[in-house]
């Protein structure tokens, strides 16, 4: 029960941050995908920069509840391409269409409904593609830590600093 309440509260904060930060804005999303308005990429790189540092500091102290997704190359690559096309066509991603819907944006609601249909469609196709795309070339739950063979904190710190540096000092706000 406590876990459900924590989930709800974390979700509330997540939704609020995405709304307040303009992440559910079509103008911001498409601006980033057209490589003109760097708002979303800076927001994401900052979040990942702080997140990587936070997660690996927790992990270093044995406090992280990690959830590493398996690296099955073909399914992730093809899924990523399909997802990317859907992202550009709708202007939303699964999280931001939820937030857009909560704001009363009808286009976001249509994306949310489409997303439910897309997930259902995948459940019908799954048995036919599981062997070829998910079991094939599946390297399991591997991280850069496993590849490098050193403690993740030594990768996390420079990676985090690079992302924060990119957001705060390298990228301009806009490119014309």
């Amino acid at each position: 029960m406590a876990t459900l309440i924590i989930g709800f509260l974390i979700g509330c904060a997540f939704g609020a941050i995405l709304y307040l930060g303009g992440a559910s804005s079509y103008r911001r999303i498409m601006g980033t995908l057209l490589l003109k308005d760097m708002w979303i990429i800076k927001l994401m790189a900052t979040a990942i920069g702080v997140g990587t540092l936070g997660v690996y500091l927790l992990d270093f102290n044995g406090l992280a509840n990690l959830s590493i997704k398996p690296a099955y190359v073909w399914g992730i690559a093809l899924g990523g391409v399909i997802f990317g096309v859907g992202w550009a066509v709708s202007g939303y991603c699964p999280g931001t269409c939820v937030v857009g819907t909560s704001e009363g944006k009808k286009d976001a609601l249509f994306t949310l409904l489409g997303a439910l249909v897309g997930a259902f469609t995948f459940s019908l196709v799954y048995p036919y593609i599981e062997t070829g795309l998910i079991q094939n070339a599946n390297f399991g739950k591997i991280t850069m830590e496993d590849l490098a063979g050193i403690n993740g904190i030594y990768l996390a710190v420079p990676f985090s600093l690079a992302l924060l540096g990119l957001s705060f000092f390298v990228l301009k706000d806009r490119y014309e």
Partner: protein
Amino acid sequence: MHEGTHSMSNDYIISWKVAGVALGLLLTLATALVKPLGVSTQFVVTDAVVAHTVAPQFAESNEYLAKYGEQTDWGVGYGWMLVLGMLVGGGVTALIFKNRQPQADKGSMPPMWEAQFGHSHAKRYAAAFLGGVLLLFGARLAGGCTSGHMISGISQLAVGSFIFGVMTFGAAILMAKFLYRAR
């Protein structure tokens, strides 16, 4: 579109810096308390719950839905409550900050879309729906979305999540350039 001298102050509610740092801290908190953030799985859980209510036999026979349905006892867990929270947290915040939201970010018809594709709401909604279908088909094939793979996954330095990030941004940028090509 006239850009006034005071337009910058109306251009956002909180800056990407504040939102980005807050999101990174929230991810850290979630990882400490339960597990990292993720959204796309919950669309399957929702489908599984609906399918189990409407057509239980079909739901049990569908390998993928049954996987998510049974794990959560055909009910809701941490992840689903998180997405419900997004709906509530986003909605309440949107009500409170309604007057501070930039004009360009309001409404169901983005001005940018209208300038390129015309005034038809049906066309915008059809694209939004189709995009949604592709989003979740792709996310389930890949095993995550912007939150689970990109934000949470890359923050955990997961190899698969880096692959997802590169492929997704690559495809999305090409598609966006194609949609908004000069004509």
